[in-house]
């Protein structure tokens, strides 16, 4: 995949998010837009995921599952979820719920929605594949607010002890959670130091730079799980949503959808 195409794909994913968010009057638009560039880089560059070789695919776990619209839209662009199925998102008698249910579609590896769950499931899967000498890699996306969960640090301690170098965790570090900023609510940083102290390879990148994301996702350190702290902006791509806490909750009206789409063209 040529790197220059990734921005085009990301823009398409953002358009799909705005479409389904508007149709369903869904919340969590900002949370979804925040991680689009990460998911685009994963699904269209870093991960081995091929419909014709499905059983050997790499695994992606969306632990911050309130950003489900971003995953659904990415999977739709990838052709794993049909556009018809995507259009049933959060509709009555529809196809896809607001948070993930793995029985609704292929590509949804883990049901999730409560924070601090998917991460630990991903650790178990990574250990399982390693024991089976299965070369598949496991990727998980966690939120920064999610990292206030004790389960994250329980898992962090064991994943490094188990030398899970087939596991890559990306933290969507947009510094906005439901009702505040992680940096203001608790002693959040220094994040790389914390993960390093837990035995992980840790790096920090611009979570909207495809070049930096590509570089960070490449390779790793033998015997160590990897965490990428991706500096992001909640609501990225739509100027009036960017870094605004209200876009954790606000809905995209028809008028706002038009305005957002116009701005997206310029992004």
């Amino acid at each position, binding site marked *: 995949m040529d790197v220059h195409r990734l921005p085009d794909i990301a823009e398409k994913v953002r358009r799909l998010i705005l479409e389904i968010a508007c149709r369903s009057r869904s919340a969590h638009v900002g949370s979804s837009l925040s991680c689009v560039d990460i998911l685009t880089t994963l699904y269209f560059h870093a991960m081995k995921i091929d419909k014709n070789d499905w059983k050997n695919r790499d695994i992606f776990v969306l632990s911050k599952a309130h950003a489900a619209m971003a995953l659904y839209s990415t999977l739709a662009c990838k052709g794993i979820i049909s556009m018809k199925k995507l259009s049933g998102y959060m509709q009555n008698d529809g196809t896809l719920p607001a948070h993930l249910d793995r029985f609704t579609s292929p590509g949804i590896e883990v*049901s999730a929605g409560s924070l601090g*769950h998917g991460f630990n499931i991903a*650790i*178990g*899967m990574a250990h*399982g594949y390693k024991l089976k000498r299965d070369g598949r890699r496991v990727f998980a996306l966690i939120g920064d607010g999610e990292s206030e969960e004790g389960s994250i640090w*329980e898992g962090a301690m064991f994943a490094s002890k188990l030398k899970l170098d087939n596991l890559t965790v990306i933290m969507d570090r947009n510094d906005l959670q439901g009702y505040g900023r992680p940096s203001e609510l608790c002693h959040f940083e220094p994040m790389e130091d914390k993960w390093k102290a837990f035995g992980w390879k840790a790096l920090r990148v611009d979570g909207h730079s495809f070049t930096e994301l590509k570089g960070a996702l490449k390779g790793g350190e033998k015997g160590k799980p990897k965490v990428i702290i991706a500096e992001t902006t909640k609501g990225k791509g739509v100027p009036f949503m960017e870094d605004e806490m209200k876009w954790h909750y606000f809905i995209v009206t028809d008028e706002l959808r038009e305005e957002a789409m116009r701005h997206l063209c310029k992004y």
Partner: protein
Amino acid sequence: MRNSVIERITKEAGKKKDIFLITGDAGFGVLDNYKKSFPERFLNLGVAEQNMIGMASGLGLSGFKVFVYNIVPFVLYRCYEQVRNDICYQNVPVTLIGIGSGVTYSPQGVTHYSVEDIALARTLPNLVILSPSDPIEAVKCAEYAIKSKDPVYIRIAKSGEPVIHTGRVKDITRPVVLNEGEGVAVLFHGSVSTEVVSALKGVDRRPKAVSVPMLQPMDFSSLEKELKAIHTIITVEEHFVEGGLGSIIAEWIVSERLDYRLIKLGIKNEFIHKITNNAGMRSHYGISSEGIKGAIEKAYGNG
């Protein structure tokens, strides 16, 4: 019973390479043989119950048949949301082996009792709940769990419980009749079975005694067949009197408009401040052999 279950799983692990055993820092003297025989398929995930259940789910999703061993509070209470979301909602074949059922660990204190576990577990769809009454049933429960594609919760006391069945136990998915009787039936599960057995020895009229190791899903049609000549059901369990077997039977009687009188014996729904051993606690809450005997006599109208 815990030894019977673990020995059975250890034996199977030699044949089936997908069996995996996780503990949360419990199992000294119990898991040693498994740990030594299958170190690759064993993990002590320490004092971190949320991660323990999450990882069990992930190992299950990657194709392993996972067993998790811990005392009940650390396999079900501390990590209830993980059991709900990561095991039952994902519907992965993980078996939770909870030890120290009821007030086995008296007088360790309330933190170590599991008197509401069935009430909690039975709200979880997909979860099979097993509470064996003796080591024979315990082995059968382990065998059921080994074959099962569903999440399973096995509730057991500790080790050293006596065998109560004189005959062969064919099927733990159905009520297991310990002895025949008329008019009154005693339904029970778990290690309190020894109190039932000893109560039966001291009564004039012997009631029908039925062990119910599978509490969820309950085979009501088999149960109804076993209760044909019965007017009074007595449920006995080392669990809160509300929320366990007694409640399951009460709901069934009401929903099916059945004509049984029901006497529920169990632990009063309260935080237990009494300090005494397991036998003393059973006596205090009316589930010792004396308490059960009294209930049987009352049910026959001569108490």
